């Protein structure tokens, strides 16, 4: 299957230039061209199959859940476009090889170009709507890169941004449309979609889908009123303009309409929208093409107008109209690319694109003059050129179309008008540049370009003439393409002479009137000047600016950098949600019978509430509120003990101590008192907020407590001994059943320790020399009694923590608590002896300890892999040692050891580093400062 190789080769083309950059431009150009040539050959190799009537397809599931497949097809339509894209792409490459200045990063340019080629190939070959959309967006991106290639030039940047914004927005609309379409058709597979026309047309969502898809197509193909980005995209280097804005990208929208034609066209809405938009675009573009004075601007607007023409044909939608559309796509690609390149040559050789400064170039560059005249004639639709054929078919279809009912004569008239204009501006283009004497001399003295730079133009011009003379050669590809669009073969014959008929008349009118129009176009310019030139860019930029300012204002209103405000918003939201949740309860109290409260509980609750309120009441006297806080902590741990959670009680107690020390350490560096600064109103607001949230929490808690909840705990209790080999279920859960959570938690702990360690370094803080009442600190740094007691307590504490650790698996205790006890004991030494003294005697650092803890835990988990068990599977066994008795060993204990180390390391990392903060620059004796 060779289909996927075509995009793959294009992809290869993206990297080749970057790799071969050093080998010089010539080599690089050739190397870049090679994959494209190969791809083109591959494409042609498929033609026989197509002629034989079967349809090469390739499918590879990518994200089947989304219906996104890597699917390609190569039907007639794809064939037409792929050969256009690759063929013209190659010519452009050749052209660019000469066009770019020596110093410009040609490799990057080639790479971008190939990227664009890849995305275009992807679009036209995609056999899956989503895939098509992906490539569609890729074209927007790559064209952004190409248009903005001269990024030092602000016009280039602005133009690129504008193009990206417009086409990108269109792309989003298209995505929505395609999703709808796929939903209607029941699949994103193109084949299916094309088959299910009735279902789609019948679907009520059809109009919406149609509008969205057309938005995508129109923005891409620069249809009025989305045309404005195209002229500004002319800031791109000419090869880009020639490639993107004549042959390929702007045709993507057209292609989309043709591609989906069988599925979504044919409805009233389609015909009206598409035809009228096209007609408007046709006239608008033509008119401005006549007025502009910049060579590339003229070409850009003429492109707009020709795209409009094609759109009109697609809107009309009769078989012959489709044929004409495809034919004109082909022709326009050839002559417009050629024109752009000649414009580039002129620019390149004379240094300007202003008609005012050009003129009389036919002596300087006769060949270019000839080529330009030929291609311009094709654009104007002069007989015996390819443009003439398709344009005449266009006139015929416009005349024959029954659209607009009673006003159906309007279409041909407007069509003729468009023809007149296009003749006029083509004539103007040629005459003004080559024949009319120049008013001012161009910056550079003009001369012919290098031979090979002209070659692509020559080739294309030759094609124009050739097809114009014997249209038959175009019949085969067109036949295939039309069949792909109409899903049925179409009998047709391309001829130059159809006898005297209306279309011929229209062409003649167009020619004569066009010449006349140009003859007096000076007056037209006068006429045109009366209208204030509305620059689309200014409008666009203005819109962007307004958007920016508006969002800025919004941001400032919402996010003013005040944490308090955020908090209140947050809490308000939480309150709302919680309240809503509560409102849904049938009744607050559940079925479970409540238990009696006794005196102890009453007092305990009273103590806790007292402590909490006290903390708040005294929060401006920070030390006192800390004492109050630790009352709460104490009672909380008692509560845990009361409600049969010994492990929690132990943990809470030790954490209590650690927290107290931490806060004391911090308080030393922070103000001792909080100023009274909250306004009364704010206090009231906060009180209200907090109180109502408290009520919500209370009712929530009550609701939970009074309902029966069947948790998964029975499993744990049942399997703790057989599965985990431990009697203390809480500990077994921690180190075994939910060991993975614990692993994560100790990791967080270690990370917090490290983060704090980092935050603390090179932190210089002012250290008060006196306490809140202005008393100078006592000089007795290390009270003797404290020191000796701390040293007496250390061994005992270590013993106890060893005890707590070892029994943890079967009785209350475990790594967390043991670690905290050890840490606290060491902290006591720190307090009693100071940092230097302790550090000298501690021959290890804390960071490694914490990390080692996490590592041990992890390794224990990994160890179970060695035995082919899942991560963190614990094993345990009872070993009988004579005279000593059973000893139980469980790998979970190793894990617990990891927890222990992590806790010790992290806690000491936090507290000891915090304490260290003062030692380096702490005056031994209090000195005034």
């Amino acid at each position, binding site marked *: 299957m060779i289909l996927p190789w075509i995009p793959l080769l294009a992809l290869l083309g993206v990297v080749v230039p970057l790799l071969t950059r050093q080998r010089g431009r010539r080599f690089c150009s050739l190397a870049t061209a090679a994959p494209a040539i190969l791809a083109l050959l591959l494409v042609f190799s498929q033609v026989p199959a197509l002629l034989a009537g079967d349809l090469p397809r390739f499918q590879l599931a990518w994200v089947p859940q989304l219906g996104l497949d890597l699917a390609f097809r190569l039907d007639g339509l794809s064939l037409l476009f792929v050969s256009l894209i690759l063929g013209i792409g190659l010519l452009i490459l050749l052209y660019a090889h000469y066009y770019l200045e020596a110093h410009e990063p040609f490799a990057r340019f080639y790479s971008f170009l190939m990227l664009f080629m890849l995305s275009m190939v992807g679009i036209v070959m995609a056999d899956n709507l989503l895939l098509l959309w992906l490539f569609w967006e890729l074209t927007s991106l790559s064209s952004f890169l190409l248009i903005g290639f001269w990024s030092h030039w602000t016009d280039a940047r602005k133009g690129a941004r504008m193009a990206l914004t417009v086409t990108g927005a269109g792309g989003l609309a298209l995505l929505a449309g395609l999703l709808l379409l796929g939903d209607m058709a029941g699949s994103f597979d193109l084949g299916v979609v094309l088959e299910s026309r009735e279902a789609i047309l019948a679907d009520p969502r059809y109009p919406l889908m149609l509008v969205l898809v057309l938005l995508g197509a129109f923005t891409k193909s620069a249809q009025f009123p989305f045309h404005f980005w195209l002229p500004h995209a002319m800031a791109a280097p000419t090869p880009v303009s020639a490639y993107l804005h004549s042959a390929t990208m702007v045709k993507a929208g057209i292609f989309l309409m043709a591609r989906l034609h069988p599925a979504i066209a044919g409805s009233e809405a389609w015909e009206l929208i598409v035809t009228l938009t096209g007609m408007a675009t046709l006239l608008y573009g033509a008119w401005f093409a006549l007025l502009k004075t910049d060579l590339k601007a003229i070409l850009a607007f003429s492109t707009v107008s020709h795209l409009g023409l094609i759109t009109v044909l697609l809107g009309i939608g009769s078989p012959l109209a489709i044929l004409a559309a495809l034919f004109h796509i082909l022709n326009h690609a050839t002559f417009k690319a050629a024109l752009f390149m000649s414009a580039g040559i002129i620019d390149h050789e004379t240094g300007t694109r202003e008609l005012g400064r050009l003129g009389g170039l036919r002596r300087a560059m006769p060949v270019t003059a000839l080529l330009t005249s030929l291609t311009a004639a094709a654009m104007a639709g002069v007989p015996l050129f390819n443009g003439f054929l398709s344009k005449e078919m266009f006139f015929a279809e416009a005349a024959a179309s029954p659209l607009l009912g009673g006003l159906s004569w309007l279409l041909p008239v407007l069509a003729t008008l468009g023809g007149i204009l296009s003749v006029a501006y083509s004539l103007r283009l040629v005459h003004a540049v080559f024949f009319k004497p120049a008013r001012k001399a161009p910056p550079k003295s003009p001369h012919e370009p290098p031979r090979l730079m002209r070659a692509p133009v020559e080739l294309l011009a030759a094609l124009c003439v050739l097809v114009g003379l014997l249209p038959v050669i175009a019949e085969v590809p067109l036949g295939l393409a039309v069949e792909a669009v109409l899903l049925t073969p179409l009998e047709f014959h391309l001829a130059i002479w159809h006898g005297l008929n209306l279309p011929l008349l229209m062409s003649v009118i167009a020619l004569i009137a066009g010449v006349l129009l140009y003859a007096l176009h000076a007056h037209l310019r006068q006429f045109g000047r009366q209208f204030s030139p509305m620059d689309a860019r200014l409008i666009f930029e203005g819109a962007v600016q307004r958007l920016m300012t508006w969002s800025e204002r919004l941001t400032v209103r919402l996010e003013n950098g005040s944490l308090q405000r955020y908090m209140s918003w947050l809490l308000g939201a939480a309150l709302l949600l919680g309240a809503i949740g509560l409102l849904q309860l049938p009744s607050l109290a559940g079925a479970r019978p409540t238990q009696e409260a006794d005196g102890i509980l009453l007092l305990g609750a009273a103590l806790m509430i007292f402590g909490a309120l006290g903390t708040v009441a005294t929060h401006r006297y920070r030390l006192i509120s800390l004492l109050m806080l630790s009352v709460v902590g104490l009672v909380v741990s008692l509560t845990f003990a009361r409600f049969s959670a010994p492990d929690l009680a132990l943990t809470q107690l030790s954490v209590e101590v650690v927290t107290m020390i931490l806060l004391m350490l911090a308080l030393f560096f922070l*103000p*001792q*008192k909080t*100023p009274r600064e909250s306004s009364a109103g704010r206090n009231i607001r906060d009180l209200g907020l907090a109180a109502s949230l408290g009520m919500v929490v209370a009712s929530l808690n009550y609701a939970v407590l009074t309902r029966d909840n069947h948790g998964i705990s029975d499993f744990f209790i049942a399997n703790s001994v057989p599965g985990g080999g431990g009697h203390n279920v809480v500990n077994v859960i921690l180190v075994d059943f939910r060991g993975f959570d614990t692993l994560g938690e100790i990791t967080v702990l270690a990370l917090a320790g490290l983060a704090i360690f980092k935050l603390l370094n090179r932190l210089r803080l*002012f250290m*008060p*020399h*006196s*306490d*809140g*009442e*202005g*008393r*100078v*600190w*006592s*000089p*007795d740094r290390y*009270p003797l*009694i*404290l020191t000796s*007691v701390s040293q*007496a*307590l250390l061994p*005992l504490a270590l013993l106890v923590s060893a005890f707590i650790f070892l029994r943890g698996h079967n009785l209350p205790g475990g790594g967390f608590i043991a670690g905290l006890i050890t840490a606290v004991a060491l902290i006591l030494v720190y307090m009693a002896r100071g940092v230097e003294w302790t550090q000298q005697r501690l021959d290890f650092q804390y960071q490694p300890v914490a990390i080692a803890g996490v590592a041990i835990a992890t390794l224990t988990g990994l160890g179970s892999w060695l035995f082919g068990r899942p991560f963190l599977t614990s094993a345990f066994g009872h070993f009988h040692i004579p005279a000593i008795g059973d000893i139980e060993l469980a790998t979970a204990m190793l894990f617990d050891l990891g927890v222990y180390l992590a806790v010790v390391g992290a806690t000491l990392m936090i507290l000891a580093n915090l304490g260290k903060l003062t030692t380096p620059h702490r005056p031994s004796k*209090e000195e*005034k400062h």
Partner: protein
Amino acid sequence: MTVFVLLEGVISLLLIAGGAFIFIGSLGMAHLRDFYMRLHGPTKATTLGIGCMLIASMLYFWVTEGKPDIQEMLITLFLFITAPVTAHLLAKTGLHQKLRHADKTRGKPLELRPEEVGEKPVPHPDRGHG
């Protein structure tokens, strides 16, 4: 049988005594006249009270579980180690803060050497939140 009754009596007695001592300790802390006197209550009476209770529980579990088990002694041990330190440091703090003491107290506690009470007060930096 009578042994158990006797034991039960002893245990109950100890319990009540312990509670009483604890209460007295806190009472002293609550209503004595100056800080230094309040200090005595908790450090002594309370410690003793805890001791009584621990003995009670020791006896109780001895009776119920049948085997002697004096691990409660550990708590007493720790209390004996720690309670004095707390008291000492608290008193030290009190002296440092020059807490006033009942007038009738004899001895002049505050004639601490100048290097022991810091020099004359300096304004605190956090007045008005730098």
